[in-house]
């Protein structure tokens, strides 16, 4: 659970006391209930599940996560770049036989 996809709010209106709107998902537009994101404005991104916005998308957090991935990628690139011929990239340490699942650190 649960199919929730991000979409951009393009229209907000009141329908008999319920905040409704139109949301654009990269070329597909559909009605959605915006009652649970009262702070949403046109242009904001929200997560839609079964025709309801259940959360706003925090752009800053989204960018921060992506930057982290980028940095990680750069680190790997650097490692690979410093490897000479004949070296292999870091492999996983040999784990050995499976330990008891109850074992703590």
């Amino acid at each position, binding site marked *: 659970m*649960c*199919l929730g*996809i991000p979409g951009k709010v393009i229209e907000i209106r009141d329908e008999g006391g319920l905040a409704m709107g139109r949301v654009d*998902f*990269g*070329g*597909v*537009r*559909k009605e959605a209930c915006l009652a649970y994101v009262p702070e949403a404005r046109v242009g904001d991104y929200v997560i839609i599940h079964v025709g309801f916005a259940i959360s706003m998308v925090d752009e800053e957090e989204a960018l921060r996560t992506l930057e982290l991935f980028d940095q990680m990628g750069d680190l790997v690139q650097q490692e690979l770049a410093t490897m000479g011929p004949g070296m292999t990239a870091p492999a996983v340490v040999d784990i050995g036989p499976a330990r008891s699942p109850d074992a703590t650190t």
Partner: protein
Amino acid sequence: MSGMPPDRAAADPIAATCPAPLEERQRVLLGHGSGGQLSAALMRDVIAPALGAASPGGPLNDAALVDVEGHRLAFTTDSFVVSPLVFPGGDIGELAVNGTVNDLAMMGARPVAISLAYVIEEGLPFDELRAITESVARAAIAAGVRVVTGDTKVVGRGAADRLFVNTAGIGIVPDGVSLGADRAIPGDVVLLSGPIGLHGVAIMSVREGLEFEVEIASDTQPLHRLASAVLAVAPDAHVLRDPTRGGLASAVNEIAAASGVGIELDEDAIPVPGPVRAACEMLGLDPLHVANEGKCLAILPAARAGAALAAMRALPEGDGAAVVGRVVGDHPGMVTVRTIVGSERIVDMLVGEQLPRIC
């Protein structure tokens, strides 16, 4: 732990008697018409055995080749039950003509003539019937075929979903052309003439209860010019197929099974328009299983791939054509796809009807 399943023979024989009432397994379901595994099962388990010796058997192709005193005729039939009758990008009339022309074209045939039969539900307005028939006319002229015979029946209210259309078509297959679903061989390249999922999403967008706005139209179009252009540069092509119901995945699986080969696709090479992806994300559907109506798969020797691709792209019908995979000797009958993140998985035929999901 090995990948082999436990010994099937040890399965409890009592459990083999399914407690679900047999009648549930003995009725036709909507899913039997989706073009996926259920449709194949209906053909294999009910229809083909009942036809028995009256049918020549052999692989299921888009059209049959019939030898008539030295000439090879392609002969095909199709029924169209789409609802709504009119959808973004076309209507049932246009769909019917193009669908039949394409079945002929996929066997390498030059389409010659088609028949047109209507089963009309009482109450259908004349204007609608006229508009659809005018679409048939336009599509036939565009495809260079004549509607040479037909039939009309009317049934009571409720007995047909407004209008059902059946068409049959004949065409002539030139010498030297030998296409068939069972002809793919390892080493062949898989080409696709353009982006997938357009027809299915266009239909779904106007489906009652779902309705969404999308700037997509059905891709229904005749493919006989595209087919000839490919055959002109690759007369030794092995398979041509237009993926329709069941999507790209079902068509490729059918070919892999008929030819006894494996097929590998590259997910990021398969053209999927943004709005199709968005609609599929929204509904939880796989674009590989969504219906098409104007796309052509071509499986041909690697040496011909470049020329065939160029031939496709030179035509508007081939806008967006791409190499999407290859035929291999591994895992015969199975289709795998290399995913965007770099892993590999098996892609199966569509099971039944595609149902939107929330999970």
